[in-house]
């Protein structure tokens, strides 16, 4: 059985016929070929799949494509404008907050949502807020630094 879904992804209207069991991350990666959103686990813990739905961070591996019907989705591909990185992306680059890059899209999307909710988090808050994102490379040290730096630039 397939169902029709339609949503806005990174500002563009998209639609498709998908199996009802299709996850949002599958729709993004397989139907739309937006492969920046990654899958790192199957228990909704690693956070590599985080995207924004209507501006809020959501794990797209635990969301059905059907649930995103009619929403506005932003993925990592939708952040940079005209080749200019989003301040969070720029902070990650400046502070070497990524190594292999696999968890990075989810980290960046979560971090942006974190600052939306808590504009000037202290270190302990940042570390606590990253509970839903696992990085195996960086030891988190530079991710924390990057988020602190981005908070300053983003004018919280």
């Amino acid at each position: 059985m397939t169902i029709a879904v339609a949503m806005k992804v990174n500002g563009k209207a998209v639609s498709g016929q998908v199996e009802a069991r299709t996850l949002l991350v599958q729709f993004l990666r397989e139907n739309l070929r937006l492969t920046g959103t990654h899958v790192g686990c199957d228990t909704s813990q690693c956070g590599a799949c985080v995207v924004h739905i209507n501006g809020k961070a959501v794990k797209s591996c635990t969301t059905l494509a059907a649930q995103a019907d009619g929403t506005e989705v932003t993925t990592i591909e939708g952040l940079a404008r005209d080749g200019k990185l989003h301040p969070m992306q720029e902070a990650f680059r400046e502070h070497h907050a990524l190594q292999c890059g696999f968890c990075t899209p989810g980290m960046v999307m979560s971090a942006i949502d974190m600052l939306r909710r808590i504009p000037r988090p202290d270190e302990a808050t940042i570390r606590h807020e990253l509970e839903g994102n696992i990085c195996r490379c960086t030891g988190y040290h530079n991710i924390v630094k990057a988020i602190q730096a981005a908070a300053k630039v983003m004018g919280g």
Partner: protein
Amino acid sequence: MVENGIGARVRRKEDFRFLTGQGTYTDDMNRPGQAHVFLLRSPHAHARLKKIDARQALAAPGVIAVITGADLEAAGVGPLPCGWQIFNKDGTPAHEPPHPVLAVGRVRHVGDPVAAVIAETRALARDGAEKLVVDYDPLPSVTATAQAAKAGAPAVHDGAPNNVCFDWHFGDAAAVDQAFAKAAHVTTIDLYNNRLVANAIEPRAAIGEYDPAADRHTLYTASQNPHVIRLLMGAYVLKLPEAKLRVVSPDVGGGFGSKIYHYAEEALVTWAAKKVGRPVKWTADRSESFISDAQGRDHVTHAELALDKSGKFLALRVQTTANLGGYLSTFSTAIPTYLYATLLAGLYTTPAIYCGVKAVFTNTVPVDAYRGAGRPEACFVVERLVEKAAQEMGLDKTEIRRKNFVPKSAMPYQTPVALQYDSGDFITHMEAALKLADHGGAEKRRADAKKRGKLLGVGLSTYIEACGIAPSNVAGALGARAGLYESAEVRFHPTGTVTLFTGSHSHGQSHETTFAQLIAEGLGVPIENVEVVHGDTDRIAFGMGTYGSRSLPVGGSAIVKAMDKIVAKGKKIAAHMLEAAEADIEFKNGTFRVAGTDKGLSIGQIAFSAYVPHNFPLETVEPGLDETAFYDPKNFTFPNGTHICEVEVDEDTGAVQLTRFVAVDDFGRIINPMVVEGQVHGGIVQGVGQALVEDCIYDPTSGQLVTGSYMDYCMPKADLVPSFQVATNEGAPCTHNPLGVKGCGEAGTIGAGAAVINAVVDALKGFGVTHMDMPATPEKIWRAMHGKAAKAAE
């Protein structure tokens, strides 16, 4: 000084694509007409595999084919090879039972692949696998390291009595016995170095593709060393000539050792693509990674240190049982032997060392190298013993180390366990670490913590590791079935840009930046004009990949050699063009100059001339500017350092908070300090993870993996650790490679575990606690504080 050369904190060239979602990991790739494969895996730890009925599966929607071990055997597909031969004490070779791509007759661990279902989509392949009827006859299993060789334990492989793969030893037993006989004090320890799961965040993935027109196979795979996969899979498993086989490892999302090995899925998709006439793709779920990626550590060890009355080490005796799992993974046999016993001297002058290692088969996922690979295990044994000895003899933890360190003046230093340390200044990094950690203020912090109901503990560990296994002839004599050199090709293009082809592979290590810095420094080419290519056997001459912190010491040295050839050829061309003697040409900062004059040509002009050779010494020099070099190291490199950790243990709950972590490392010369610090941070957290939270647990009765997902296997998260203070000491560079570099990828993991456990034990000294196995969970600590034995898990 060259811009963006050696020593500069250059921001990474690879970051833009990763930050914008444009990286290309294997699962991001889709080949035209591709089908998907799902692997049905054994739910049993040990069972006879009697019959697989595929009729219903084959009739399921979208299913294209079902492949079993019998099909592969009938087609002549060979078993997965082991890359290192170990010999028993008695000179006989280790037992190397076959490791079939798909199980035949028996399954030996939960996750052992049994059948492959190929279908139109991943979901349909999985649905089809539900319809496979497999007739298992369950057998008793053994998973615990200490139980495997006991009489009556279930036999994992026929022909391996008592489940022993090998019984190996190293060192001078007689000298050790003599030293123990005259020791004033002997410190003993029994410890379990717990099993870990590497957990690179990108699950493994592989796509096989076959081009009938060219009769050529391509394998895209998330691997740390594509050339080694081509060699092993081509020569041993599929028997394909290398010229007909291309292996590509595109962006790879972390490895930590787990993506070194040649895995069944790689051979399966490569073989199946030809069989079904379509590309075949496999991507692991995380649950599948837990039962199919090689795991790490898992040593049970009894160790004894003999000391004289002043606290000077006289001898070390170690007996370890190492769990290799159900089959031998590619480098599994080398890890608890030549990468472990040889490191037991640590930073110390211990004159006599003996180590026995019994390696056992169990009904568990195979064990192989995981970040550090043998060296964290050795460091843990040595540094726990040193700490315990200091405690027993009433010596300060720094004093006992100072007394026994190999002094800088003794370099090069021959250890009693084969290695010759070329360089190192151990006192200097320990003193620097003590200062950085404000060690003098620790007692005041301890008193302050006590007022808050917290027990402060200070842990110190020092480590030395051996990186860049070498030279190839020595490794070969010790059983390696491969060489351990690296290749580099520096290709100038006519307009002066450079492509560097390296046999190393980056899966987070920043080669695209660091290696470009080497070219900027060595040839004066702006870093933005350097492209680094890795991970493709069709594009790169050869390579041994990236593991064991070898990329810079071995791969970087190959780059230097190739650059030397470029400069040598450039001098000949410049001499002709500048009408000077070759001996008078100097090369500096990208310019060939006639010594003592202002006559010169840029390397870009030389490159152009090499490709448009109108004014060119064609009689003696070939056109073109493209040089390849292979570098075989003269010795290992020996990164070393000091880690200091402070913890606060909650008196009521036993919960541990890491409050301070300092690492001062000697990695030799540093190319990009930003990248090096990042490697240290990540390494530390993997060590801290083992020490405090990570644990791979099998149920001793059923053999099931209890910690088979992120729900149960505790990964270190951001709130487990504080920010770190890290520094390097460049005062003792490597003496035998052209860059003076030592490697930094594994150091954090090697030193951190012992530092954390030493700190926890220090915090609990008031309770008479002298040792704690990893991970030091609140439950274990609480029990230790309350004098209740920890639940017998092992």
